[in-house]
């Protein structure tokens, strides 16, 4: 099983750099990309590539090494056998990536993707786009505000 941190890093960098050769090597032949917010579904690498190539203003992408980017659900997993030996488990089949990307209009959005891995490739992505917003007035004194930059 592929290391998901490495797989995600290669996937994100290939998108940011429009490196379609690398991207195609990472994308499973049964790849499906869903945007639940708009109901769009892209099937296969060609469909995904067409979207990236035609994105108005250039594809928004997190800069390489973005400290806000992270992967959730990639913890090493293990099991205890009846003989009390610890057995490492294969990597997870699904994980969640989080990154923050700048758009051509200057806004920044959090991108949360639930990714499924099959045959060491990404076979499914369910991606959500969440805009930044200011803390609402009515509760801003109830919470701690963490600087976003």
């Amino acid at each position, binding site marked *: 099983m592929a290391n998901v941190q490495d797989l995600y890093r290669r996937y994100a960098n290939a998108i940011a750099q429009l490196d379609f050769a690398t991207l195609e090597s990472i994308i499973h032949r049964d790849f499906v990309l*869903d*945007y*639940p*917010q*708009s*109901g*769009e*579904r*892209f*099937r296969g690498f*060609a*469909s995904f590539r*067409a*979207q990236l190539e*035609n994105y108005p203003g250039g594809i928004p992408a997190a800069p390489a090494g973005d400290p806000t980017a992270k992967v*959730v*659900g990639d*913890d090493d*997993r*293990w*099991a*205890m*056998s*009846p*003989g009390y*030996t610890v*057995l490492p*488990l294969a990597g*997870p*089949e*699904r*994980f*969640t990536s*989080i990154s923050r990307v700048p758009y051509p209009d200057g806004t920044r959005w*959090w991108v*949360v993707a*639930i990714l499924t891995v099959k045959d060491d490739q990404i076979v499914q992505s*369910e991606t*959500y*786009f*969440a*805009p*930044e*917003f*200011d*803390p*609402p007035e*009515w*509760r*801003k004194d*109830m*919470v*701690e*505000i*963490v*600087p*976003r930059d």
Partner: protein
Amino acid sequence: MTFDARQLFERFARAISDRDVVTIRGLVHPDFVGFYPQSGERFGSDLFVTQLEQYPTGPREPVSDVPPVRVVSDDGRWVITPAYTVVPLVEPSKYTAVTSAVYPDGSEWHIVIMVELREGLIYRSDSYFAPVLPAPLGDSMPSRRG
């Protein structure tokens, strides 16, 4: 171990919808920290409850239908030992939960929550709120509305 994370999250979602602070307090860890990365807001369990109690929608009746909660990474996991016995795996502690909500202004949002559990309770939650959007690419791209 037969811990059911989905059931926990569904109870949590129902309690939030009903503003059932007693149940909420019973489901969150004493050291709970919630975070809204989009606005930078961070809060503990007391402020979380206060926030729910003071949410500016006015008095309302509890809704009968709470959107379903889908939990990612709660698959039953197992491993085959060298002796070919099947051993269940220790449950994961981190989950991604996906649900949706309709706000008082009628807008629909997807909510994706990264949850970390400790001692069977919600210990950390990072919540992302994603609005329903029109498909910007229309029919000009090889996609389809799902």
